[in-house]
């Protein structure tokens, strides 16, 4: 059974009210959902809160779930809608989260620690930190559809077809979004790559 098949099997059990199956789904996909949201909004604490809302939505929608598409495509569609709602809510209320008061592109400022892959050299650490900040900014500044396409393609490894389903557009439109995003990233990150 592929992970995709087992996701569908788990979801069908959730549909029948199996709480253990739901727990397993959350355990399996928590990292992907949290990181997708974090990369889109740049706020680690809120990313967790929104990720919880995504999973609650999954649970609430379980009765209506039809295994017509890959589970992850459905999950990322809910994730994207949740992010969009959050952006709308933020622009409506102009609410400032704790994160907004800090530097949104600085993962250090959130109290969150990415896995330590840096060298012990302090100068190198500063460069790495600066680079991560720059990358975060560059991705977050992309228009929403381009950003989602980049996150799903680069970080979550979704195919063009799956991204097209999440974005509710054609495969050619998805390719075009990715192309434009890459051109922008190339310009914004110029000087940071060899």
């Amino acid at each position: 059974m592929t992970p995709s098949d087992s996701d569908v099997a788990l979801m069908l059990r959730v549909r029948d009210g199996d709480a253990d199956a739901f727990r397993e789904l959350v355990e399996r996909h928590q990292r992907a959902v949290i990181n997708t949201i974090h990369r889109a909004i740049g706020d680690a604490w809120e990313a967790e809160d929104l990720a919880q809302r995504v999973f609650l939505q999954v649970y609430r929608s379980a009765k209506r779930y039809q295994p017509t598409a890959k589970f992850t495509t459905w999950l990322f569609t809910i994730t994207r809608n949740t992010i969009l709602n959050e952006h709308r809510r933020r622009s409506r209320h102009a609410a400032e989260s704790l994160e907004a008061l800090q530097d949104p592109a600085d993962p250090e400022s959130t109290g969150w620690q990415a896995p330590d892959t840096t060298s012990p050299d302090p100068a190198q650490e500063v460069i790495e930190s600066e680079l991560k900040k720059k990358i975060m900014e560059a991705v977050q500044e992309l228009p929403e559809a381009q950003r989602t396409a980049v996150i799903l393609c680069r970080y979550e490894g979704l195919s063009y077809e799956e991204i097209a389903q999440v974005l509710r557009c054609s495969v050619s439109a998805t390719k075009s979004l990715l192309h434009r995003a890459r051109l922008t990233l190339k310009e914004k990150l110029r000087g940071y790559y060899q």
Partner: protein
Amino acid sequence: MSCRAIREQFDERLDGRLARSQEAAFDAHVAACPDCRPEWRAYAGAWEIIERQAGIEPSFGFVERTLRRLDEQPTVGRSWFWQPSVRWVTLAAAVVALSVGGWAERERRQERRQAELYAHVQQADYLEDFDVIANLDQIEGGNHL
């Protein structure tokens, strides 16, 4: 292969969507072309580098907290009222009730209007009679002259 054709394949090359022969032709062109080589290196370089943005780990107890929030939510699905079939029947009943209510109200208004009109006509007859009587006095008075 032209430079333009090569640049149109940048995305497919990055995503590993080129056939092996196309990939070999692409790589050969880029290696030899002084215009395409820096373009490709910049394009691919930016894409490679964003992967260095490591993800965050869920905080301790994330799953438990999610499940706890679930306990605060209604059970799977919504209450019976929000079942689509119940919702549609309720909506249809509301539409029927409004239509019947509207029709009854219209009938009632029409009856009331007819009654008012009848009363008005009755009153008008009386006034007409009254006028005739009043005029009669004048006529009679005139006759006296």
